[in-house]
């Protein structure tokens, strides 16, 4: 990835440039050159202002339109009681059942394997999702918090992979404590595998 190297090189350049300009003008007075200008023409200032305003309005408008078109329904994820590990939803799978909708929420009921296949398409956008452990006795909430908040849902990934049957869209997340998630990701880094974990016993 070139971005860190590019950022570091540019940062070194701007540090040297700004330091030189800061101390040069103090010492020598003003000698304007193309690389060390004393100011900018009025026309250039207006052009930059107009371009910046147009860019800002364009980006704001694009984000607003994009947000309106990407409305996502809330999801309710039902995970077998005691399951610890990665769960995975695979979308747009032929012959798989569509996702049921209950109370305006998509219902993702995972089997004990932690792998759920559906013919439904994945939706994108922001929505408040809910997570539960389910058993014969009922369901209990799984907290979804930021790091350090005692949550049990981690590492949500929405991605696409290519296989022999074409491209496959999927969503994965980890169910367990933050410590278990850390141990799992460190273990995966060592093994180099992203296969869903088996349920805890």
């Amino acid at each position, binding site marked *: 990835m070139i*971005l*860190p190297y*590019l*950022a*570091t090189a*540019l*940062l070194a*350049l*701007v*540090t040297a*440039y*700004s*330091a030189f*300009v*800061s101390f040069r*003008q103090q010492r020598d007075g003003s000698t304007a050159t*193309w*690389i*060390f*200008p*004393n*100011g*900018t023409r009025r026309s*250039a*200032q207006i052009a*930059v202002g107009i371009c*910046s305003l147009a860019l800002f309005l364009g980006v704001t408008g694009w984000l607003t339109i994009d947000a309106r078109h990407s409305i996502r329904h809330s999801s309710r994820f039902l995970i077998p009681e005691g399951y610890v590990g990665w769960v995975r939803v695979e979308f747009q799978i032929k012959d798989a059942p569509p996702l049921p909708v209950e109370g305006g929420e998509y219902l993702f009921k995972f089997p004990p394997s932690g792998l759920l296949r559906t013919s439904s398409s994945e939706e994108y956008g922001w929505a408040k999702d809910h997570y539960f452990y389910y058993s014969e006795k009922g369901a209990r909430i799984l907290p979804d918090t*930021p*790091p350090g908040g005692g949550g049990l849902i*981690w*590492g*949500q*990934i929405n991605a696409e992979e290519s296989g022999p049957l074409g491209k496959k869209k999927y969503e994965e997340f980890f169910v367990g404590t*933050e410590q278990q*998630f*850390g141990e799992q*990701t460190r273990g995966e880094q060592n093994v180099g595998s992203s296969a869903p974990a088996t349920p805890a016993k």
Partner: protein
Amino acid sequence: MIPFFLYLVVGAVTGFHVYILLMLAALGAPVDPLELVSLVGSLCLIIAAYLSLFKPHAAARLALLASLAIWCFYGPAIVRTVGWF
């Protein structure tokens, strides 16, 4: 216009890079407070870009302070990556 583009590009590139790193927190990565300092530095660099159109000398000073703030994150990161200590 040279300082304007220089400060603007560097502010955008470093800000975008640190923003990506901060987004990894959503996957459980720990947040380094220096990343936030660096992000503020990138924002100041973008402000310096616009200031350079009117007051090049003041903009250069602001850009120098901003770049030092950005180095607060990049410096230790480079040292750790290279493994000097």
